[in-house]
């Protein structure tokens, strides 16, 4: 009766490779500490890759969320007139080139534009907005402020306000209510329930009751009113001057903006244009993750290659006797490639499990929760199954490549020399 191991090998391995597979597995099983060290080298490489990618992409994700969650991902508006070139550069009449004075410009048929934008791929939310400059006052000192009018339900999805409220409310804002930030509230010395006066750049004025005060911790923020109020303040009738978009994939906004500009006559401005330095920093973090991963895998590949070279030297007499029994060069090299493959599969599996466990443990909240906020994790880890799979695949490929050199060396050994 055949041993159980032989039955399993017969079921899983093609007959042409059973000798090579069986010998490679026996080498690993009899290798003891050497096998454990080799597997550990691969596992360590994968642990580093899994942990570093989880950490860096977690950081990248956290940064991008912090950066983009409170801003529209694409802003659609009427394009500002471009500066006109000097008609005769040799005889300038002015030493400065200026853009035309900023004026609010209508988006024609904004209902149709919004409907069309909602149908585009990658677009998750759309809000029609009136935005302009104005002055807020209570008493004698007017303070400059950006006034934003929109449907509170829609805008709250795109630039969350309710989440950052310190007091009061934003949703279900009524026609004579306003939400302002803590800086403005402090400057005007007002609290929720008190009234302030708003004067637009179109010189229209109205009084509002402060319904909510928010704090984003990002300096002076906008003042939010209903769409109708803003349209009145800026004399836009029933029009809007801006459409805000939120998207699913924040890194695919350039293509979306180009599509919008091709489909409409309006300028579509992706968030990446205003935050290009932040974007570059995040991209550099991603590249760093890839580089660290690559170097880790290369380092473990060198360790594996050196252990396998020692193994070939140790097994040289065995290689000689196998050749005397008719083993072909290709069979000998396949034994050592299988040996490397075995190490790679076991090592990468161990590495993936341990690396994910470490990343998971570090993602658990460790700092005590601050009142009103979620408890924070020690590291903003983001575990990406695809990257774990890729790390395993890369480790397996690297290890097999590392095994090829000693395998070829083994195949070329002269049996007469090694058995002398």
């Amino acid at each position, binding site marked *: 009766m055949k041993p159980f191991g*032989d039955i399993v090998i*017969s079921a899983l391995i*093609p*007959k*042409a*490779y*059973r*000798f090579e597979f*069986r*010998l490679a597995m*026996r*080498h690993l*099983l*009899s290798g003891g500490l050497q096998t454990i060290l080799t597997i550990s080298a691969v596992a360590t490489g994968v642990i580093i890759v899994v942990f570093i990618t989880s950490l860096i992409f977690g950081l990248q994700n956290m940064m991008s969320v912090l950066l983009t969650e409170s801003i529209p991902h694409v802003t659609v508006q009427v394009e500002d007139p471009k500066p006109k070139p000097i008609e005769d550069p040799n005889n300038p009449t002015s030493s400065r080139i200026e853009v035309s004075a900023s004026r609010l410009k209508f988006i024609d048929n904004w209902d149709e534009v919004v409907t069309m934008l909602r149908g585009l791929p990658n677009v998750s939310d759309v809000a029609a907005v009136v935005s302009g400059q104005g002055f807020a006052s209570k008493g004698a000192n007017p303070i400059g402020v950006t006034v934003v009018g929109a449907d509170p339900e829609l805008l709250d999805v795109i630039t969350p306000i309710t989440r950052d409220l310190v007091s009061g409310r934003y949703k279900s804002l009524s026609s004579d209510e306003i939400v302002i930030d803590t800086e403005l509230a402090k400057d005007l010395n007002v609290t929720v329930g008190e009234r302030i006066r708003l004067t637009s750049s179109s010189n229209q004025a109205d009084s509002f009751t402060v319904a909510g005060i928010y704090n984003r911790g990002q300096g002076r923020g906008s003042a939010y009113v209903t769409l109708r109020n803003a349209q009145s303040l800026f004399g836009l009738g029933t029009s809007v001057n801006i459409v805000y978009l939120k998207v699913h994939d924040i890194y695919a906004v350039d293509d979306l903006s180009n599509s919008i500009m091709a489909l409409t006559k309006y300028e579509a401005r992706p968030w990446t244009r205003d935050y290009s330095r932040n974007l570059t920093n995040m991209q550099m973090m991603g590249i760093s993750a890839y580089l660290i991963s690559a170097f880790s895998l290369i380092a473990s590949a060198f360790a594996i290659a050196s252990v396998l070279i020692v193994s070939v030297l140790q097994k040289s*007499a*065995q290689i*000689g*006797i*196998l*050749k*005397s*029994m*008719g*083993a*072909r*060069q*290709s*069979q000998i090299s396949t034994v050592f490639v299988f040996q490397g493959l075995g190490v790679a599969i076991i090592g990468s599996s161990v590495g993936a499990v341990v690396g994910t466990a470490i990343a998971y443990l570090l993602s658990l909240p460790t700092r005590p929760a601050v009142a009103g906020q979620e408890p924070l994790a020690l590291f903003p880890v983001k575990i990406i199954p695809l990257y774990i799979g890729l790390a395993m695949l890369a480790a397996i490929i690297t290890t097999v490549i590392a095994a090829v050199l000693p395998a070829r060396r083994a195949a070329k050994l002269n*049996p*007469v020399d090694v*058995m002398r």
Partner: protein
Amino acid sequence: MASTTSTPITEVIPIGDPPIVIETRGLKKTYFGKIDVPVLFGLDIEIRAREFLAIVGQSGSGKSTLLNILGALDVPTAGTVLVNGVDISTLDEDGLARLRSDEVGFIFQAHYLLDEFTCLENALMPITIRHGEASDEDRERVLKLLERVGLGDQINKHPDEMSGGQNQRCAIVRALANQPKIVLADEPTGNLDSRSGAEVFEMMREMNRLSGVAFVMITHDDRLAQAADRILLIEDGNIVEITNDEHKKKVDRLTPVKELA
């Protein structure tokens, strides 16, 4: 040779002249280096099926070199080697490997069993190398051979669990596993005490009689050489074929051989 063809373990009865298994013509070998060392000077040898041939000679006379060339492990500097009628110089690397697998079995001074495998697995190794896996028929045949050499109760033991003599007997079965035409044995008793050596030699002789496989054995042991069918003495790179009786007389002047024996 198909691995599934089993050979019954019964004594072969010769009918007519046995066929030539290995033939060399003008075989020369020189080791090239800072100083070129010629070892073999144009040897013509014929080895027939069923015969048991002993090769004797002083240390460094080229016995092992000759054996390695006969088994296609080494290449001659000049001359021709025909194994079962095939000129081995016409074979590529894979062809040589196939020839070593199908036509030749090796036994070395050290048993060279693989530590990672049991006695039975080691004995089946040439079949496993050739076919990926041994058939039930192959296992049955090899098991019978192991029983024949007294290892029936040792088949699941690893080499480090068996004595030197047992390991060498396992190596003999391994050499016969693929039913080769010839077994080349390079001092197979050299590492054994005289009793184990005698046992191993008897096993080889018995296998030779039972299977009809030709055996070529290098030995320094005069008693073993005298028990062979034919003795080839390598002297100064040339071969001198001698009968057992002649060998007895020559032993007196082969001082190193005598010392080793």
